[in-house]
């Protein structure tokens, strides 16, 4: 498996650290109800097919990446820099 980092180009899977689903970008407000925090931390759509998840280019540019890929075929569809996403990540 290879990811094409928008800054570094195509790189071996070993350069990246996988965190988890895109959910991690939607952190609830500190005072949000505990159900919102439970959902954010634990519950997942977990699709068999297209998914979006977060990878960190640890052995490269040190950027967080939002990767659109297929969990069944391991096909990588899109890799975006989290820092430049609309709305941004806080």
């Amino acid at each position, binding site marked *: 498996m290879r990811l094409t980092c928008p800054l570094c180009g195509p790189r071996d899977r070993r350069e990246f650290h996988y965190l988890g689903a895109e959910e991690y970008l939607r952190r609830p407000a500190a005072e949000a109800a505990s159900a919102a925090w439970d959902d954010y931390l*634990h*519950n997942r759509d977990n699709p068999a097919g297209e998914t979006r998840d977060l990878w960190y280019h640890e052995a490269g540019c040190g950027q967080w990446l939002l990767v659109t890929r297929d969990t069944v075929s391991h096909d990588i569809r899109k890799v975006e820099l989290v820092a430049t996403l609309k709305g941004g990540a806080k």
Partner: protein
Amino acid sequence: MRYSGLKVITEGLFGNRGWGQVWRNPAPKAEYDAVIIGGGGHGLSTAYYLAKNHGLTNIAVLEKGYLGGGNVGRNTTIVRANYFLPGNSEFYSHSLKLWEGLEADLNYNVMHSQRGLINLFHSDGQRDAFARRGNAMINQGDDAELLDRDGVRALLPYLDFDQTRFPIYGGLLHRRGGTARHDAVAWGYARGADQRGVDLIQNCEVTGIDIEGGVVRGVQTTRGAIRAKKVGMVVAGRSSQVAAMAGLRLPVESHVLQAFVTEGLKPVIDHVISFGMGHFYISQSDKGGLVFGGDLDFYASYAARGNLPMMEHVMEAGMTLMPMIGRARVLRSWGGIMDMTPDGSPIIDRTPIEGLYLDCGWNYGGFKAVPASGWCMAHLMATGQPHEVARRFRLDRFATGHLLDEEGTGSQHNLH
């Protein structure tokens, strides 16, 4: 038909013509008292104990492929009861006791082999942690012995004890740990359930769950609608998809775990060896193949195959620990999909929908759990109450904070 040594001999003398079909191949009925979705180890053991312990025989197991074609036939067959946390400890202890009586109970040879499991440690701190775990196991009524370096050397003389990165300080020996023949466990439970009247329905994929006013009414399948008063979802690796049919979103992320087997060799590894620091474990099958594996590939996946970096890592760890295996040729590698929960422990519980029950989240280690999981899921489905040894495997524990994080690695699905 009852199996026995005598039967094997007489059949051998007369051309093996007397072996009948092992289970029926029934068409689905329009209605059952209960249906189990998933014909893996856990689904089949649930059906068996529903019939045997609770007298529920108007039930069916619905399997989308063939019985035992899922993870129950893809694992590395380690059976152990070396858990630490209250909640896990009594459950796996119960499971191991069921394993010890399983062949007699099922009248089926599952090749359960208590060859002993050794967890290696490589530092003083790790020795303390294993001493503590061993004490917890003994307090639970199971067995554990702390071996020093010479103790390990006497059993496993072929390890590289002086490797510079992880010199071996000793190991925790769990003599009652071992392996079993994975397919045979599925087949034995299937045969036992069938003999008690359970319908095992293969090539029958559940495509929808019928719910009216918060109560389950049955399922939609590729072989038509089936009504049922109770439905159990026991679909390791597909739990999120099946639960979504009932509108549930689970605390599960699916990951691929790989395993490897070499060509058959003469007996060389007598135990199950676990090298946690290298993320490597190994045993030798009765056919002679070295069966080994490591960690997850670490990214969410439903592909029943992994990637090369983890393969390379596992091979390196094996060579670090026991250079003698370097000449063996790897025959096959494969992957299986596992439900990873945020604390690494399973769920056996009711759902918010009346009559709908959930058994999932087995992570890396659900094979050894097959007997107790079926036992407890059957108890839950028959009585509506959680079984004593599975009462902490609740679906709401993530919301309430009653996590069972055996390894203490934190609330992230792939870290367990």
